[in-house]
């Protein structure tokens, strides 16, 4: 795909809950290789927008294209198969599965994942499992979670759970990852690990679309930056543009911005 072609684009995307238009006619593009930031006050519609992109909600109006394919209204599982992965604002680990199992689960099209495969194709299943296990341990290592591989995912800290969600998403080899407030509620040292790993993945070519309240993080690492307020795009540009836009900072982001 050429660099000018957006990886993801929405046109007039709208989601109404009754009279509340949580997302109201949003048209935007995510270019491959970027770390696009999405900011905006609480209730601006950011999470709802992600839910529309990931198929968790169906839009009232508008379209979504992913890698040139119209994916409007497509289910989350099919979108994941097409290479679109996401994490959740409030993490959703599989609590009574081990950390490692949380990762092993994610890759699509495992032969042991069907009834017949699990019962009759034992050799093939075992081979696949070994390969997945190596891959998963590599990713856990990269995310500094290797020591926790055997722990139940419900027993690790909130910050580690955020790392786990990203690790899990990586197992599916997506081309775009949506991160909903990855740093929220994470202690500073883990936040540094998280940011470092996201940057590294981005350097290797992964595209990210990130909702984040930590303005320091967004200003420093995200480009472009998109601001949402009351379901509408109110700003789109670089960190410098945002800094220059005093109105944006005051009106939508509050004070205390670095």
């Amino acid at each position, binding site marked *: 795909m050429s660099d000018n072609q957006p990886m993801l684009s929405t046109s007039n995307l709208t989601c109404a809950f009754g009279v509340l238009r949580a997302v109201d006619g949003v048209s935007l593009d995510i270019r491959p290789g970027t770390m696009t930031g999405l900011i905006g006050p609480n209730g601006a519609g950011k999470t709802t927008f992600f839910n529309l992109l990931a198929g968790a909600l169906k839009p009232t109006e508008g379209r979504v294209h992913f890698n040139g394919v119209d994916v409007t209204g497509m289910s989350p*599982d099919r979108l*994941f198969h097409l290479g679109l992965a996401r994490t959740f604002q409030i993490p*959703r680990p*599989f*609590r009574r599965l081990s950390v490692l199992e949380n990762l*092993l689960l994610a890759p699509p099209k495992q032969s*042991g994942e069907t009834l017949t*495969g699990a019962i009759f194709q*034992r050799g093939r299943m075992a081979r696949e499992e070994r390969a997945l296990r190596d891959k998963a341990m590599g990713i856990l290592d990269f995310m500094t979670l290797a020591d926790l591989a055997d722990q139940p995912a419900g027993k690790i800290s909130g910050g580690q759970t955020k790392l786990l969600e990203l690790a899990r998403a990586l197992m599916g080899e997506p081309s775009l990852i949506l991160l909903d407030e990855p740093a929220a509620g994470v202690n500073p040292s883990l936040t540094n690990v998280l940011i470092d790993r996201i940057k590294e993945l981005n350097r290797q070519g992964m595209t990210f679309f990130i909702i984040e309240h930590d303005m320091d993080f967004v200003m420093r690492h995200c480009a472009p930056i998109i601001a949402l307020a009351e379901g509408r795009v109110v700003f789109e540009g670089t960190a410098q543009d945002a800094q220059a836009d005093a109105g944006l900072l005051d009106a939508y982001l509050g004070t205390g911005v670095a």
Partner: protein
Amino acid sequence: MIGVISYLAFFGTVAAILAIAVLGLNLQWGNTGLFNGGVAAFFGAGAYGAMMLGGPADPQQLGGFALPYPIAFAGGIGLAALVAWAVGLLTLRLRHDYLAIATFGVAVALEAVARNAEWLTGGAKGMRGFPRPFEGLFADQFTYNLAFLGFVVIILIAVYAGLERLVRSPYGRVLRAIREDEVAARALGKNATRLRLEAFVLGSAIIGVAGVLYVSFYAFISPQDMAPILTFQIWAMLIVGGAGNNRGAVLGAFLIWGAWTSSGFLLSKFAPTAVQIYTGPIQYIMIGSVIVGMLLWRPQGLLPERIERTKTGNEAPGENASQG
């Protein structure tokens, strides 16, 4: 002595049959988180299905068709699976509590059908005369009963082994993921709707196997045998044994069935007549108390679910022994 062995064989046969049903429920609830409140319906479907196909002809009814045992066996399982598939299509989108109510309702409705559709099921008096398998091969009833126990135990072991394979595979892992968080499982590419339906149908088919064996053993089936108390008994067995653990499911079946039959025996033997007439209700209260007590004090059951551990300790440099 023969009397004791005879009794133990009888007890073991019924307990093993119920254990198969508990294993089916464990696939649904223990592994997939599907709250099947209508276990009795699928048990009854298996039993009635086998009886209609394999039972003797009756001029007052549509069946039976006196078909060979394997066909009756497969037909009973098929009917249980078919009912589960239809119920699943309609109700599996429901949340836990609603799914429980819906499946309970289905079971009560099917029991009413069995009780009233005399042309099909013989009504309240039930259907009798199911030709018990391989009965001609054995000289006396005692030997036959031991052989039948062996037959049931072999099927129990086969079901257990098959389910263990399944739940230790990526398939079982996906089912547990759906149980833990369906939204997250979907976001990771899993078709939760299809998988839930599969697990529901497969679990119900296994409960149907138990129904088929039940009618094979007693040669008789009536609406009484698919009353709601059966659903509660099977649930008590799973909760006591340990949801999510197949060995726990089997253990729970034998323990609860032992408690059920011995309480019945003790009440009938030693309780004053005034109390004896309440044997049924007393046992119901007992089952209810066991369920509530376990959920309060040991919700994970006697043999809790185990979390899969890696077997790759040799790879990590020494300190991989993190344990929880």
